[in-house]
């Protein structure tokens, strides 16, 4: 016994997980996707999942790591949540009303409990939102228009706004980063490692470096999930993750070698590879605080020389849709506008008009997102005929972010992921002084349009405002939009009732294993 303690907590949790029948990766090594391995201890109800990295922490309000959210989507809830077609639906709030002046929203809460048995009340909602706002947590910007959050009895919450905010439901429900958390769990300092939520699964163990195990919450308000245990393992190498899936060590992964996706979609046996258009967009941008990129003609010249279709092929192996605006074709907010048909002579004359020749441009990309490296190589070769020499700087993400923040770049390529409302696509990136406006774009008309859209409620009027803003942003080449990628996930034929969602939320509460 003593030995085990010396070996440490890691060994102990593995031992516990194995005892509770959670070790579905183990035993047998049969290749029939886990269903038969592990014997009679009900491992048919254990789902093993390979994600690309270890979550940094499990406090949904503090993390910004997608690997964390892949776990937390199943642990926490928001007041309202997007369904698989991204329409807002009741979650912890069952219904809501809006005052005639649009400034007061009243939410009626569901009668449910936390995973530790404590009743869920309006105080939890008030605490959660106040925490995000007061501590300036990463999603505080979503509450910019919120004046106050108050409880009206135990089961009603009132949100008072500074001005009408048509996308309030998106702000408080569109992202698990605004999940409702339990005060006790936060104040005990436990939430980062042992979170307590209201969602379909609870975290039972976290074996650092190796796996996180979730158990079904029998009291979940949406009904007890059919899969009893989910084990997340962290596999950074996509070839290894694919081998895990093929050998039946895991039944789900989103970490696939991109170059193999299309052939796997045709020929995979025992599992399915699904791709769904996402709400992400990838773009290139130029530093307008630097010469000559402050000249719109230079930016346009570069936009005319770039062929997003070629980038889609090279960087995503065809698993994306080229788009010269931000919002994907599948959205009701899509704005069909593509002025930059590749045109080298136009690009050359724009550059000549700006008086620029033999330009050397640094382009910052990161191996955290390998597609940016490939895209940069394509862009470099496309800009060569213009007399622009692109020097590609491939940085690790930490360095990349710090250079972005310091404005220490000529140009870079990156993406914005998991956008729902049009304000997610444009506001903070394009408004003057916006918190994500690293390219220092400054256009009073765009500012006015985006601000007006923030408070406009009617769909048609709002869409028209965003369309006008998008047109200017594209014309001014503040961002040179490249493509909307697909969400690609692969899962065993034994996993049923699972939906690949455009917003990359990974939810297993309705799924079951055969």
């Amino acid at each position: 016994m003593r030995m085990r303690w010396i070996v440490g907590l890691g060994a102990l949790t593995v031992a516990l997980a194995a005892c509770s029948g959670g070790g579905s990766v183990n035993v047998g090594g049969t290749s029939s996707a886990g269903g038969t391995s592990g014997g009679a201890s009900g491992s048919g109800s254990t789902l093993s999942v390979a994600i690309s990295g270890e979550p940094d922490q499990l406090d949904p309000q503090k993390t910004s790591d997608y690997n964390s959210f892949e776990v937390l989507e199943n642990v926490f809830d928001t007041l309202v949540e997007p369904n698989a077609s991204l329409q807002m639906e009741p979650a912890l709030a069952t219904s809501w009303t809006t005052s005639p002046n649009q400034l007061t929203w009243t939410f009626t809460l569901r009668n449910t409990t936390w995973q530790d048995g404590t009743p869920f009340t309006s105080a939890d909602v008030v605490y959660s939102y106040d925490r995000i706002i007061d501590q300036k947590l990463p999603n505080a910007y979503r509450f910019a228009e919120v004046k106050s959050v108050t409880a009206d009895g135990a089961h009603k919450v009132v949100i008072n706004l500074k001005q009408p905010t048509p996308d309030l439901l998106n702000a408080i429900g569109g992202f698990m980063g605004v999940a409702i958390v339990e005060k006790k769990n936060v104040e005990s300092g436990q939430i980062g490692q042992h979170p307590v939520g209201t969602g379909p699964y609870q975290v039972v163990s976290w074996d650092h470096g190796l796996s996180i195990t979730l158990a079904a919450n029998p009291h979940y308000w949406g009904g007890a999930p059919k899969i009893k245990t989910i084990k997340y393992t962290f596999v950074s190498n996509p070839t290894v993750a694919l081998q895990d899936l093929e050998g039946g060590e895991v039944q789900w992964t989103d970490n696939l070698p991109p170059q193999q996706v299309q052939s796997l979609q045709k020929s995979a046996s025992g599992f399915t590879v699904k791709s769904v258009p996402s709400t992400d967009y990838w773009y290139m941008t130029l530093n307008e605080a630097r010469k000559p990129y402050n000249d719109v003609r230079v930016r346009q010249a570069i936009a005319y020389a770039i062929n997003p279709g070629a980038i889609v092929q090279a960087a995503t192996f065809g698993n994306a849709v080229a788009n010269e605006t931000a919002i994907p074709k599948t959205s009701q907010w899509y704005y069909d506008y593509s002025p930059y048909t590749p045109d080298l002579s136009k690009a050359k004359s724009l550059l000549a008009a700006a008086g620029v020749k033999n330009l050397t441009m640094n382009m910052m990309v990161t191996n955290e997102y390998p597609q940016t490296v490939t895209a940069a190589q394509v862009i470099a070769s496309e800009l060569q005929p213009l007399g622009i020499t692109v020097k590609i700087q491939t940085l690790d993400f930490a360095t990349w972010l710090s250079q972005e923040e310091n404005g220490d770049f000529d140009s870079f390529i990156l993406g914005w992921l998991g956008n729902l409302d049009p304000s997610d696509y444009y506001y903070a990136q394009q408004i003057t002084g916006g918190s994500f406006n690293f390219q220092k774009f400054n256009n009073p008309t765009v500012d006015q349009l985006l601000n007006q859209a923030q408070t406009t409620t009617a769909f048609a009027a709002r869409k028209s405002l965003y369309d006008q803003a998008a047109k200017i942003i594209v014309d001014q080449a503040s961002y040179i939009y490249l493509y909307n990628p697909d969400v690609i996930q692969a899962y065993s034929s034994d996993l049923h009732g699972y939906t690949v969602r455009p917003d990359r939320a990974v939810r297993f509460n309705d799924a079951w294993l055969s």
Partner: protein
Amino acid sequence: MLWIVGRRVAQLVIVLLGVTLVVFTLIHLVPGDPVRTALGIRFNPAIYAALRQRAGLDKPLVVQYFSYLGHAVTGDLGVSFQTGQPVTQILFQRLPATLSLAITGMIIGVVIALPLGVLAAVRHDTWVDSGARVISQLGVSVPDFFIGTLLILAFTGTAGSLPPSGYVSLTANPLEWGRHVLLPALAVGLVAASILTRFIRTAVLDELGRDYVRTAAAKGIPARIVLRRHVMRNAFVPVLTVVGIQLASLLGGVIVVEVLFAWPGLGLLTYQAVEQRDYPVLQGTVLLIAAIFIVVNLLVDLLYAVVDPRISLR
């Protein structure tokens, strides 16, 4: 004996002090900032400043260094920026995985290299020798992660029944531990074997050319016995040094192999700490790796006396 251990411990302290200084300086020379990284793409200057202050990163570097040293002396290596766990606790969680991988890998290496190296030396300049040399040259040149990828493609997925990733602790389930450790241990073991084979061959060949071998042969002692009783014993001292260095570097965590096989040891931890700029964890791992290196080398020195009675430790 005691004296040499005492002197080595004093050396250990000085070296570790040097390591902290070098690591601390290097970490801060590399661009990138843990708070910025933790915030990811969604960045807000006000939040950033608040978090930096909370982590003590706004203080001058000299102050940060001495405050770190002060705590380190008492065994407190700080807490991880990412998880908030104490660094010492994290290190002890990761150590068993690395220990079991390194030792298994080393055993595989020695088991392959010993017969191969001796055989190559005894039959030197024959096809056996050339074969062994070509194979070991190949093993030294091909990186371990490439060998690892080949092993994964050959033995996992639809091709075989071994798991390509993951870890089960030895105490929890020895059988499962064995299934999981085999491929990563082979990946590091084959590389270690290649290096060892060359050293063993050279060491044995060296001894075979000595006068005492000729004398023994002249006295009519069978070659097999000369080899086992005299040559191998004498050749063992230099080989032991190499085995020690190899083992020490494996114990420091085989970063790329651990990342490839999702093996939760010190190597994977170091990799994650660098990616996330988790300074306390990174400093902790480097300190531990340095300490392991020094301790293993000390043990090897002590073993010399056991292997070769002519060496006295004073």
